[in-house]
């Protein structure tokens, strides 16, 4: 479980996160949604320590993550997998080497054990015969899947996904969403997903937090997001013409 307590973040004079408190539970896909520039990426990067909040606390289980230094965070980071927006696969390494990378650093496994684990992870994300390919030889969807395979290589307790569907076609987006959802349930992972894709939210959003101008203004799930009465959330959810027409057809108020 991850607990966020009253975190604030400033860039210069501009406050980009305002007093955010939220809990993320194991076995659930928790989503951070909001318009571009609302602060959701800053929140995600603050959660994993790539940005430091100016105040507030971030707890991983019983450990106060936000007070630890690099060495202290190292142990928790071994339990974290992260899928980056662009995949962030290492250009200099093959698919196999990318997935094996954390194993080389943090395990004493033999070469065969590592190879088996790489193959298991790649099979889990439905990739075959790509071990020797370089990231530049893969499609966007395949890169995302390799990113997921690398993220789960060491059986993480926490999985963070930054815009996992950006740049993907609707069908591939659903495949990636379902994969994240399955892995989350299968290994009881605490998954936090940063997205502005409403299809994703409706597909896998077990727990949804809406950020507006740096403030967490609504918390719910995919079942009650369409009927929520929060004005800014409604504008975000029903932004497209198609969504507006659906809203009229459904007779949703707000």
């Amino acid at each position, binding site marked *: 479980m991850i607990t966020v307590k009253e975190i604030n973040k400033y860039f210069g004079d501009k406050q980009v996160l305002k007093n955010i408190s939220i809990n993320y539970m194991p076995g659930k896909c928790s989503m951070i949604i909001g318009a571009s520039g609302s602060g959701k990426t800053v929140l995600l990067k603050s959660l*994993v320590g*790539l940005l430091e909040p100016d105040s507030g606390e971030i707890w991983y289980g019983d450990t106060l993550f936000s007070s630890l230094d*690099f060495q202290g*965070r*190292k*142990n*928790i*980071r*071994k339990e*974290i997998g*992260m899928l*980056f*927006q*662009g995949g*962030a*696969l*290492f*250009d200099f390494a093959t698919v196999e080497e990318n997935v094996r*990378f*954390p194993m*080389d*650093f*943090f395990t004493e496994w033999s070469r065969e054990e590592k190879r088996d684990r790489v193959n298991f992870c790649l099979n889990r994300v439905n990739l075959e015969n790509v071990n020797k390919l370089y990231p530049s030889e893969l499609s966007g969807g395949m890169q995302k899947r390799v990113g997921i395979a690398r993220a789960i290589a060491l059986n993480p307790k926490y999985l*963070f996904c930054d815009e996992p569907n950006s740049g993907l076609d609707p069908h591939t987006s659903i495949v990636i969403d379902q994969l994240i959802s399955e892995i989350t349930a299968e290994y009881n992972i605490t998954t936090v997903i940063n997205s502005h894709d409403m299809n994703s939210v409706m597909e896998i959003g077990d727990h949804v937090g809406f950020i507006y101008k740096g403030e967490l203004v609504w918390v719910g799930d995919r079942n009650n997001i369409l009927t929520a009465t929060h004005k800014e959330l409604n504008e975000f959810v029903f932004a497209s013409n198609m969504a507006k027409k659906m809203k009229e057809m459904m007779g949703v108020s707000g």
Partner: protein
Amino acid sequence: MKNALELFGRYYLLMRIVLVKPDRWRIFWKQFIVDTEKLILSSIPIVAVISVFIGAVIVIQTAYNIENPFIPKMYVGYMARESLVLEFCSTMIALILAGKVGSNISSELGSMRISEQIDAMEMMGINSANYLILPKIVSSVVFNPLLMLMSFMVGLLGGAGIIIFTGVINMGQYTEGLQYAFRSYYIFYSMIKMSAFSFVITSVSSFYGYYATGGSLGVGRSSTKAIVVSSISILVVNLVITQLMLN
């Protein structure tokens, strides 16, 4: 002034996390070999070509300037050797490497930074600066002095080559000059200089690449800054080491 101090402070802090014991020695040595191939071995052709031509030009210019019959012709060889060992093979080659190797390092790290590959390493709990930069520094500091020695040899051969082609002096005079008043300390001095320059080139270029921002344009800007700052730093370090070791 404030910006310069701030920049130096960030550079110092980066070096503090770079110059620590690697997490895994096996991974370090693997990366060390990769970087040696990329930064040192791939520089051999350009260094060799430049050294041949500079050696030849030094011999021609020196011979042209020593027209006085009272000055023995063997001084052409002597002057060529001293010019090469004292300044050309370390400082000039370092300036060339600042362009070639420096831009390579800063653009590589800059691209990794903007495509979040460095963030991905940090997320895994890996000291990305140590993993990516330390092998480059160690490789350059250890092997670039050997590159300097090679440049020295090839430069002398270039001088010999032009003597064979033009007969500006005879080969006996040239080799006599090469052996005249030889001080092995100059070789040591030049190798030390080259090691220091190599540290400057790799660390400064890595610094600008590691903290690159602003997309592909930012990577280009960081490469340019890396080359300019490395080059100026080399000249300053050259002055300091020369004062310390030769005065």
